[in-house]
């Protein structure tokens, strides 16, 4: 038994040693991956922007900050992440600001299906991007909601655990890509691009996007974003991006959403702008699906936002 246990302990120690070294090595390589949006945002340092757009794929794939920069003469950044909920938006913003980045105005995109209960958007699948930042108390508090504190600390000390647990994200292909130092499509603007396919018929079944209760978590993190912007003297503007034929299909599913947002904005002395129904975007060929514009649609929409910014329509006082 002693010999067996000695061999087993020897192997475990060897495994841990190799694991620790390998883990830090892999961690170093993956942090260089500029093709991953969250990793890209997390590595931005000491940059200054006039404005930033924050939200889900309805920002990431719909707001072409290069067009906005061209038309407004300002410098902006697209901080949208596909599948992001308000909690992830908050974490992104915390890290972004903690890295010495500055921004004058933030436009936060809020959807009815982001603020209401949404199981799909409440799964903390992106938390592993923030394990290295848990020394910052707000980030630690957010992470600790979904993971036991000892495991959080273990993840920080031994990065290998993170890459094992999320091995479906950190694949060999990702490792090779990171090693190659390939640049992502974000450059300095962060826009992820929109597809070129277009809808051929209107989707009439909206049930999968319909939720009934305002999510406590979403409300909490919306307030955290508001407070974070206030403490950093950032002008925050709330808005809702276009949805194909919103008034025809979705407005009745969320009858209280607009008043909810307007009341919240009023209470916090913010602006909320409803851009969900846009007649200029009512054509099927401008949409990939009911809630995402395609390449052609994004061009028109980005010009629309740029015009609104220039005419202060997104910044007008209530």
């Amino acid at each position, binding site marked *: *038994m002693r*010999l*067996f246990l000695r*061999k*087993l302990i020897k*192997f475990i120690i*060897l*495994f841990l040693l*190799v694991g620790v070294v*390998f883990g830090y090595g892999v961690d170093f390589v993956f942090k260089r991956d500029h093709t991953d949006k969250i990793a890209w945002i997390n590595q931005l340092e000491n940059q200054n922007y006039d404005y930033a757009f924050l939200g889900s794929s309805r920002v990431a794939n719909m707001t072409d900050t290069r067009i906005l920069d061209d038309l407004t003469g300002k410098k902006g950044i697209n901080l949208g992440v596909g599948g992001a909920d308000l909690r992830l938006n908050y974490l992104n913003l915390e890290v972004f600001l903690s890295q010495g980045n500055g921004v004058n105005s933030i436009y936060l995109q809020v959807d009815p299906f982001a603020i209401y209960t949404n199981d799909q958007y409440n799964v903390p699948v992106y938390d592993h991007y923030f394990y290295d930042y848990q020394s910052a108390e707000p980030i630690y508090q957010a992470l600790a909601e979904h993971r036991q504190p000892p495991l959080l600390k273990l993840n920080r000390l031994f990065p290998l655990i993170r*890459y*094992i*647990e999320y*091995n*479906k994200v950190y*694949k*060999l*292909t990702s490792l*090779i890509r990171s090693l190659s130092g390939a640049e992502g499509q974000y450059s300095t603007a962060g826009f992820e691009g929109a597809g070129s396919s277009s809808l051929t018929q209107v989707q009439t079944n909206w049930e999968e996007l319909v939720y009934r209760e305002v999510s406590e978590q979403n409300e909490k993190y919306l307030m955290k974003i508001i407070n974070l912007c206030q403490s950093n003297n950032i002008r925050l503007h709330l808005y809702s991006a276009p949805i194909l034929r919103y008034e025809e299909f979705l407005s009745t599913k969320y009858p209280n959403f607009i008043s909810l947002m307007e009341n919240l904005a009023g209470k916090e002395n913010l602006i909320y702008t409803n851009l969900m129904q846009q007649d200029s975007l009512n054509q099927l060929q401008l949409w990939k699906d009911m809630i995402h514009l395609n390449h052609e649609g994004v061009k028109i929409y980005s010009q629309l936002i740029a015009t609104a910014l220039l005419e202060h329509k997104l910044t007008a006082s209530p």
Partner: protein
Amino acid sequence: MLFNSLDFAVFLPIVFVLYWFVFKPRKQQNMLLLVASYVFYGSWDPRFLSLIVISSIIDYWVGLKLAREEKAAIRKRLLAISFVANLGMLAFFKYFNFFIEGFTDTFSFFGLSMASSQLNIILPVGISFYTFQTLSYSIDIYRKKFEPTQDVISFFAFVSFFPQLVAGPIERANRLLPQFHHDRSFNQANATSGMRQILWGLFKKVVIADSCGVLVDAIFQDHQQLTGGILILGAVLFAFQIYGDFSGYSDIAIGIARLFGFDLMRNFANPYFSRNVAEFWRRWHISLSTWFRDYLYIPLGGSKGSVSRQLRNVFIIFIISGFWHGANWTFIAWGAIHALYFIPTMLIGRNRKYLSVVAESRAFPSLYELGQMLITFTLVTVAWVFFRSASINDAFSFLNNALQLHQLDSFTTDLLNYGKGYNVFLTFALLIVFIWFEWLGRSQEHTLEVLKHKPAVLRYSIYLVVWFCILFTGNYHSPQDFIYFQF
């Protein structure tokens, strides 16, 4: 509690420490194994425990009664009780809806309508395995080949022994039960070999089976839109998926048993290196095929008697073997196909030809042997299509589409679409390494035994690489079930 789960990674060391350091007397160890086995089994669904306890009680009692009873008629009745109880449970939980559907279809065929209602029955994990294990106990006592045990704890522990409870190997009472009656002492070499076997079993399950499974699921789901090479690839990958999954489980089970001083029977002996289908069935799921041989094939007359009788016996065995796997005509078809493969080898007297390992003491097979292995593998893979498909129609449609080989130009496109780039090549690379290692270890008790006498640096390096492959390939948010749990 899956073997490749964190729960089990905590459970096993605790039981190991308690077994060797706390509960040292044999009876206490048996009691610990019994409790641990019930905890293990109950982690799936505590309700399942009642079935295994009932099966254990009935066969324990039947065993004792059989030993004391001399009258043939009463002995037969006692054995019948064991059969009815065990096969009755199996029939109800596994085949009830299948039979109801069959009756309904038959009545409809004759123009009679029959109101039927299917029940929402949960199949208890491992029921096909432990019912056969307890049946073998009763049958061997009836045949006076084995004495029943008076030790109720040992018997219950034998029935529920957690390493092999849910997916085999299906142990015989005369092989496993005496091990509960004898003191076990820790054997360092045996335990180390057991750890190697566990490691390779995990590699087969997590790295090989689950990696292949991702592509297999996608290809089989879309098979009606696919043709040619991609479907052949899907079938081949399924052959490796089911082998990696099932033999991996068996390796882990045997390895764990060795940690506790138990010796379980070998369940797989590199079946894909078989030179004909008869040899394949001596190497695949050995515990089940020998069970059917000893308790069904031989009592039916086996290979004695007229040719028609032999053919009948072969068909019965293979069809029942297929049916054991599940309540679907596809499994019966799979069994029937193997019967059709087996019969020619039997008729020309080659079913007992290849008893030793292929290319034993040679590094490589001859071209002839390689050809034999490839042909056997092809035949087996064709049959696997039926095993994997949802229906017989799907299986035929799959094979028909797979033979549309003139569309080879779309193979690369399909491969990249389904394989999502490098993962396909990674899976192929791992398969090649896997087959090479299996080839090197084909004469060993299990594959990684080939490292036993190699330098420590090489051994530990390979262990580390295998471990990291397991860690970086596994799905730790929702570990994949073993395929054979559904049987």
